């Protein structure tokens, strides 16, 4: 059990799921980091490629603090002038001008008269109406110079002493932050870059899966010279890797099974060969002894008995052959080599081999085959065997008819090979009648070649065997 305890984790660690979760997790964890990193990158790029313009060295720009500081300072100064005489106010403004030499300042008394201006400004009304005050305030909001208006003697409400105004060019103010304008102009670009990176990683992840699946599919459909699928190369040990392993395992099993089948086939063939040898050897000895007898002086009865024994030896030999062939065929161990062949050519060669025997048996051969080839998908040896068995049957059981006809005819709209005889027909009892093993072999062989045998026997005698393709 301990051996397997680490396996589920290892399996998960190697899985596609864990890799995908890794990508998602990395993306989620990275988002909080992504924003400051983008800011930082943007700032860095801006600093590196867009350095700040160097100020004119002859020009001295003084800074007086932030807007808030200036506002507070001005309001405090205004409050401190509560109840002061105009001269004291003038004095105070002059003192303040000393502190803010770049600033302009003036004050307006309770009657709306413009009093001290430091420096003198054109465009200011000498007598302020409420409209002038509003227009001035409206103009001053968020404009350059930075403007602060404070009621003299009060922080936020009029104390009846008028108001005093402070104007300072914004360049003399301290900015609210220490950064420069434009430091963050690349922020969006870097965010886009980071997200593009995640999209690319995801795309590569799925592209890799797709590629491996397609490779596996092509491997599964490819067959080797033995007709079986070929092994696929193994990739990473994830889900697809395990599928590849399983597929290779299946190919190995198939290969093993094919090999076992082949071995079994060879074993059976070898057994049959040995059996055939063991059965035929004593028959040969027997035949040899009988042949020796022929040289001895024998009575007619003795000669007849000898001839009968020789015939029976031949029959027995044929029967052994049939029995062993039937065994191979019935067990599906007969290796067929189906090819497109000129069937008529095979028939002619077979008939040529049988012709001398027919002549000897007094059988007239009427062979009427067309010259044009007739191509059938057959195993040549198997088809020769079919013809041999049929011709052998004809000689044994229908030899008395003294006729064999081989021709081509249309049968059920198919071109059929016809082997005809004028023997007593199927219903009659033949002295050489056996278990019909020869015909069973014929049928098994024809079935393997997708051919059909049809036998028509006539009551007046004669049989016609038709052989034609099933399709």
């Amino acid at each position, binding site marked *: 059990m301990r051996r397997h305890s680490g396996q589920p984790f290892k399996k998960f660690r190697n899985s596609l799921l864990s890799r995908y979760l890794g990508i998602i997790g990395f993306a989620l964890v990275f988002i909080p980091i992504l924003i400051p990193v983008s800011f930082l990158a943007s700032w860095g790029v801006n600093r590196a490629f867009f350095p700040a313009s160097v100020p004119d060295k002859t020009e001295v720009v003084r800074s007086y603090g932030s807007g808030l500081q200036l506002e507070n300072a001005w309001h405090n100064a205004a409050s401190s002038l509560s109840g002061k005489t105009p001269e004291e106010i003038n004095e105070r403004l002059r003192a303040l001008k000393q502190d803010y030499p770049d600033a302009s300042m003036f004050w307006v008394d309770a009657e709306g008269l413009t009093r001290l201006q430091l420096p003198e400004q054109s465009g200011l009304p000498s007598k302020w109406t409420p409209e002038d005050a509003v227009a001035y305030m409206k103009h001053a909001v968020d404009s350059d110079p930075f403007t602060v208006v404070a009621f003299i003697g009060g922080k936020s409400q009029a104390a009846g002493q008028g108001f005093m105004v402070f104007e300072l060019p914004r360049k003399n103010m301290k900015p609210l932050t220490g950064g420069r304008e434009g430091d963050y102009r690349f922020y969006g670009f870097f965010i886009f870059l980071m997200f593009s990176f995640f999209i690319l990683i995801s795309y590569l992840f799925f592209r890799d899966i797709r590629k491996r699946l397609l490779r596996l599919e092509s491997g599964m459909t490819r067959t080797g010279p033995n007709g079986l699928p070929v092994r696929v190369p193994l990739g990473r040990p994830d889900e697809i890797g395990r599928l590849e392993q399983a597929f290779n395992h299946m190919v190995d099993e198939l290969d093993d099974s094919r090999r076992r089948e082949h071995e079994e086939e060879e074993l059976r063939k070898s057994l*049959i060969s040995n059996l*055939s*040898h063991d059965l035929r*050897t004593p028959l*040969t*000895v027997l035949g*040899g002894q009988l042949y020796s007898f022929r040289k001895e002086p024998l009575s007619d009865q003795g000669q007849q008995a000898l001839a009968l024994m020789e015939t029976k030896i031949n029959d027995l*030999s044929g029967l052994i*052959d049939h029995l062993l062939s039937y065994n191979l065929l019935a067990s599906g161990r007969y290796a067929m080599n189906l090819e497109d062949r000129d069937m008529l050519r095979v028939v002619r060669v077979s008939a040529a081999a049988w012709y001398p025997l027919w002549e000897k048996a007094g059988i007239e051969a009427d062979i009427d085959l067309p010259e044009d080839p007739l191509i059938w998908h057959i195993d040549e040896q198997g088809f020769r065997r079919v013809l041999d068995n049929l011709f052998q049957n004809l000689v044994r059981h229908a030899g008395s008819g003294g006729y064999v006809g081989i021709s081509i005819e249309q049968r059920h709209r198919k071109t059929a090979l016809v082997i005809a005889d004028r023997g007593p027909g199927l219903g009659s009892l033949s002295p050489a009648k056996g278990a019909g093993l020869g015909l069973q072999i014929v049928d098994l062989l024809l079935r393997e070649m997708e051919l059909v045998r049809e036998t028509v026997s006539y009551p007046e005698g004669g049989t016609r065997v038709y052989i034609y393709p099933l399709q």
Partner: protein
Amino acid sequence: MIPGKNILYIEDDPEIGEWVSRDLKERGYSVTWLTSGERAIEEAASCNLAILDVMLPGLDGFTVGQRLKKQYPGLPILMLSARTSIDDKLQGLQFADDYLTKPFHPDELAARAEVLLRRSGPPSAEPLELRHLLVYEKENIIKNRETGEEIMLTGKQFHIFQYLLRHLGQIMTKEQIYEAVWGEPYLDGDKTLMVHIRHMREKLERDPAAPEIIETIRGIGYRVRA
């Protein structure tokens, strides 16, 4: 020992071996009978034909046959076996010239042995008598015994006749003759062969309308009877 008639016979079964070698000797052959393939190579040096059983102790007949063929490519080999499967026959015929299955008739064995010896041996100085013809195989001469005249055949006609003589008594299909003589696949060669046979008959036969030498086997091919 009759020159050209020496047979090496390898058979492990004593009864079959004794019977076959006795029968072959009675037919005029000189037989060297071995019960295994051990000394086959040495013994085959003086033989004109090897007859081999397949299932032998030690080296099997196929291996012995292959070694013999490698050592003596011109030596004809006849496999004589009780193994009848097509696989065995095909395996044997990869190197052997003939394959005969047991049980067999000694006449058939002798006939096949004779064909192999004639095919592989030098042409006989004695003329072959074919009815009214005398065929001098060595000199490639055909004479009419009755008139004493020499019969002149064209190259192709002679090849066809020679092929039929090599398979004396056997029926050869038109395809077999055409492909052996012309060396091309038989497609529409029927008319060509027929024309050649007709011209040959005009020269060879007493009565070309009733041929005695080249026999037509209707629907199959031709045969020259022994």
